[in-house]
């Protein structure tokens, strides 16, 4: 360190900013790895001039954490100039605005806390949160994914909810990616895939939280930018949602000890990955200990039930520096804390390291002084270390000491009002065209290839490594029945004394985003909702998770704006409010930027789990209907991909029709007419029909001439189109009339029948048979890609 810029004072180091030149400020910036812009550095310089002293390293690091993209979401909350038009906060303009406009009576807490909370039943609420953990997982797949799960579970504990289910959606590069083509610093996708999935199973299983829903998606751009979305759902009695901390309350740190793991995790998450990320950022990845979190969980829930604490928050990105400051800020207090009281894994940590460390399995609660003893007893009973490290104060300042030495004393208002950036966005003009190729002669072969395509193929070998049944409340499991068919959503029965169910699903269509981010987002929302509708869910709330490239690049930001516009449009159209979200930007590697990827998670309810519908066919002789219109929308489809094309005709969402379809399906389910239901997504009608058949052991005979749509002239397009808002529904002969009456005018058509013969038979547009395959062949194709063990059966 250059000696004239830094002066050691006791345990802290003072940075000489007062008279520093721009170059010197930048040097301080890089020496301490702060990640500030020059404008921010100057603002800090000015602030400390008014304080009449120089900042300490603790203060600079604290400000750096608080102002980082990861913590304050500058891109989503800042100003954007889109082709001359100013957008003041993407978040306010699109995401939050939709929720505000919908005014859903079931929303309890949206966007403001660690997780969104909606009403459930009998005074209970459901908390939901989905996190991104991409950067850490790229550097250390197992640890990155495991701590991603651990982190999102703590978010749920951070609203006093008991975690009852996990979800995970992952994105990897092609597993057979050539080693020789990998640039330095990028790990082979198979290695990342094995590590990430093992990390997720290790955390969720060991903590005893079922992993019930998810997806795995493969895309070339994920080779350098792995995607790890970890979600968690919790249950809480709404009258125990304590958030009334006040001046004088003790600030208690509980859980794992603090070490050097996970320092600068948030600044790391707010930068691009480079060749050197491994070397430089390894310490930014934390170490997971799920058993510690399991113990912390028990204690937190007991403290909640005994009503001993006044507020809770998790310690995640930014470590104590985020949790302590944000807690005080939230309750309009200041805070004093002694960092020397923090229990350490080993000695020798500087005060700033203690304050920034992202060591896992730690929670922060505030406790009225009179309850402190009882709180400590609860932690002790569960073998959890807990320490009162500070107190909430009247004076709005962040005062930190290390024993007797003051290492931070800054104004809270300054700390929590970062200068917001203004970024430039532009919408990229694409010149994509529709490919021209003849209809293949053998569509059975094409279907088999599609079933084996990595994005469609069975993920059973991964799903089975996640315990999806612990807690004994998983009513509809991710894999259906003996043949392990893919259910559209998970259904849980969270309360012992109620049959009301919770439905959890997701939607993600990154390939569409290569054509248009707007329709990608619209499709993801449609898919998440229709997956939920398919099992019987309704009253849906949404969570958004954006993984994008560097937002400093105008065209990247432009597509982000497009996606947000769709979020607003379709959230409002479907009356499905956003309740929580998280973004991960700067996903760029030596191989280029990530394909913009929006994950939509949908959380709904079903009045009684008895009406849950699974995706497997139930009885020979039953009728099969398609509901929803089919268009020649194959742009970005798995079929085009198989043929080596992207195309231009991206699937759109027809708002009015989609809403009518969803309502009709829900009504048919409520009337008990739906024997099985499966949504149409990747691979279209053919894949959906095949899945329903091979999951059940019954065959299907279908006729494409009955399918309703526009300009349908090619059988392959009808089979593999990925038009949104469509379902296949099985109905008993006896209910034919009632069902058809209900579906009148709703674009519903009878296309075939369930057969005893274990075969999928499809008549093409010319009446001739275009698909003819035994179920066993279809099933084998679907399983062989990613499930060596299951295929040996």
């Amino acid at each position, binding site marked *: 360190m250059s000696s004239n810029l830094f002066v050691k004072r006791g345990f802290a180091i003072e940075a000489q900013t007062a008279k520093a030149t721009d170059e010197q400020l930048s040097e301080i910036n890089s020496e301490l790895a702060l990640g500030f812009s020059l404008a921010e550095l100057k603002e800090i310089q000015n602030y400390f001039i008014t304080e009449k002293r120089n900042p300490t390293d603790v203060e600079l690091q604290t400000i750096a954490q608080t102002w980082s993209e990861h913590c304050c979401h500058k891109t989503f909350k800042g100003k954007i100039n889109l082709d001359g038009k100013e957008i003041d906060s993407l978040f306010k303009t699109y995401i939050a605005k939709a929720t505000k406009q919908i005014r859903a009576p079931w929303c309890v807490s949206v966007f403001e806390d660690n997780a969104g909370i909606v009403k459930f039943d009998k005074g209970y609420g459901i908390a939901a949160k989905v996190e991104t953990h991409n950067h850490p997982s790229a550097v250390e797949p197992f640890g990155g994914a495991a701590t991603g799960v651990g982190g999102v579970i703590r978010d749920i504990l951070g609203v006093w909810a008991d975690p009852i289910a996990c979800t995970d959606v992952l994105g990897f590069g092609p597993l057979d990616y050539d080693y020789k083509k990998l640039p330095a610093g990028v790990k082979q996708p198979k290695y990342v895939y094995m590590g990430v999935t093992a990390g997720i199973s290790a955390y969720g299983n060991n903590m*005893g939280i079922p992993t019930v829903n998810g997806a795995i998606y493969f895309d070339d751009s994920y080779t350098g930018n792995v995607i790890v979305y970890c979600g968690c759902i919790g249950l809480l009695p709404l009258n125990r949602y304590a958030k009334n901390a006040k001046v004088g309350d003790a600030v208690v740190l509980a859980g794992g000890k603090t070490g050097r793991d996970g320092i600068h995790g948030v600044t790391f998450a707010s930068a691009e990955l480079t060749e050197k990320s491994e070397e430089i950022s390894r310490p930014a990845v934390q170490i997971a200990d799920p058993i510690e979190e399991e113990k912390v969980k028990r204690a937190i829930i007991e403290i909640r039930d005994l009503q001993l604490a006044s507020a809770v928050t998790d310690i995640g990105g930014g470590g104590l520096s985020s949790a302590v400051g944000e807690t005080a800020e939230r309750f309009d207090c200041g805070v004093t804390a002694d960092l020397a009281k923090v229990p350490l894994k080993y000695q020798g940590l500087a005060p700033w390291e203690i304050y920034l460390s992202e060591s896992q399995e730690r929670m922060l609660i505030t406790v009225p002084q009179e309850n402190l003893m009882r709180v400590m007893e609860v932690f002790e009973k569960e073998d959890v270390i807990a320490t009162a490290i500070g107190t909430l104060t009247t004076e709005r300042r962040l005062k930190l000491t290390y024993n007797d030495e003051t290492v931070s004393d800054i104004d809270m208002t300054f700390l929590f009002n970062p200068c917001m950036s203004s970024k430039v966005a532009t919408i990229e003009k694409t010149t994509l065209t529709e490919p021209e190729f003849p209809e293949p002669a053998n569509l059975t072969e094409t279907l088999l290839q599609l079933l084996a395509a990595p994005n469609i193929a069975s993920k059973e070998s991964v799903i089975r490594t996640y315990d999806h049944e612990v807690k004994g409340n998983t009513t509809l499991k991710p894999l259906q029945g003996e043949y392990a068919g893919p259910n559209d959503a998970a259904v849980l029965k969270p309360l012992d004394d109620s049959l009301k169910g919770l439905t959890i699903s997701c939607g993600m269509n990154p390939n569409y985003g290569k054509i248009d981010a707007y329709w990608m987002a619209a499709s993801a929302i449609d898919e998440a909702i229709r997956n939920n509708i398919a099992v019987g869910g309704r009253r849906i709330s949404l969570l958004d998770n954006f993984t994008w490239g560097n937002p400093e690049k105008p065209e990247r930001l432009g597509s982000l704006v497009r996606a947000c516009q769709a979020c607003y449009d379709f959230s409002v159209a479907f009356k499905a409010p956003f309740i929580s979200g998280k973004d991960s930007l700067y996903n760029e590697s030596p191989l280029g930027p990530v394909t913009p990827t929006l994950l939509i998670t949908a959380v709904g309810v079903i009045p009684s789990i008895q009406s849950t519908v699974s995706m497997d066919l139930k009885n020979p002789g039953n009728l099969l209907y398609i509901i929803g219109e089919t268009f020649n929308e194959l742009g970005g489809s798995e079929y085009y991909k198989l043929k080596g094309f992207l195309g231009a005709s991206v699937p759109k969402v027809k708002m009015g029709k989609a809403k009518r379809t969803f309502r009709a399906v829900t009504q048919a389910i409520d009337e008990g007419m739906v024997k099985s239901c499966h949504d149409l997504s990747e691979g279209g009608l053919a894949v959906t029909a095949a899945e329903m058949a091979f999951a059940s052991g019954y065959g299907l005979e279908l006729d494409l001439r009955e399918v309703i749509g526009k300009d349908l002239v090619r059988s392959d397009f009808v089979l593999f189109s990925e038009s949104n808002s469509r379902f296949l529904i099985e109905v008993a002969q006896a209910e034919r009339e009632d069902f058809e009456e209900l579906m009148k005018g709703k674009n519903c058509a009878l296309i075939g029948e369930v057969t005893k013969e274990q075969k999928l038979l499809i008549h093409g547009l010319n009446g001739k048979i275009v698909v003819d395959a035994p179920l066993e062949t279809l099933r084998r194709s679907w399983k062989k890609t990613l499930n060596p063990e299951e295929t040996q059966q």
Partner: protein
Amino acid sequence: MKIEEIKVCIMRVGGTNCDSETQRAFQELGVQAESVHVNELIKRRNLLDYSVLVFPGGFSFGDYVRSGVIFARHLSANLAKEMETFIDEGRPILGICNGFQIMVEYGLLPGFKGVSAYPEAALTTNEPSGFKCKWVHLKQENRGKCAFTGKIPVGKVISLPIAHGEGRLLFPKEKEEALLKTLIDEDMLVFRYCTKEGDFAEGKYPASPNGSFYDIAGICNREGNIFGLMPHPERAMYWWQQPDWTRQQQMMEYGDGKLIFQSIIDKLTKTS
């Protein structure tokens, strides 16, 4: 014993995570069941207040060494006297999944000659390796000694889920045939993995999820009061936990797991 006198202790420690559903299963059948942290039992020294002891599933102490071994040693170091009395009096003990692993590490099972000082068997890494969560079929092989299977006729095939990475039961290679003979002769064999049709798995995946010796999924001690199994009966208690309930024309109220809990309650209420 009257049903309301039955008190079940579900013993937990950091990392135990199937205690609440196990407690719920017992409570559903009308008996008192408590999930108790082992620290509390050590503090209060009241293990003998309970009539049944259950080691539920989970990852006790993280299972970072050998599954179950730390909990077993923790127990023998801190609660040995009460455990000894509990066992000597023939009170029933059930171990599910990690609980079964704990019992083997403690020496409670197989229990050829009472509690052994060293484990006489191992529950080791699955073959094929890795954690698996799925439903399996089991054939009931016990001729009447096991206190937990009285309600399940010999030869009946039941269905329960498993969720473990280390469930392959092994004996020392040189002794395995002799020990197997003892298991059979002394009626200590309880559940074996089989196909839906009831054919034994013969170690082959997927009917056998872990490659266990002789397809063994559950065994009891020579006296029949101590029983351990890898599958989870508490996850197969209710209709809505079944993997295929959406296919059923006529809904059963309970799943096969209930039979195990009901068996021990019947046994206790029928003997004075």
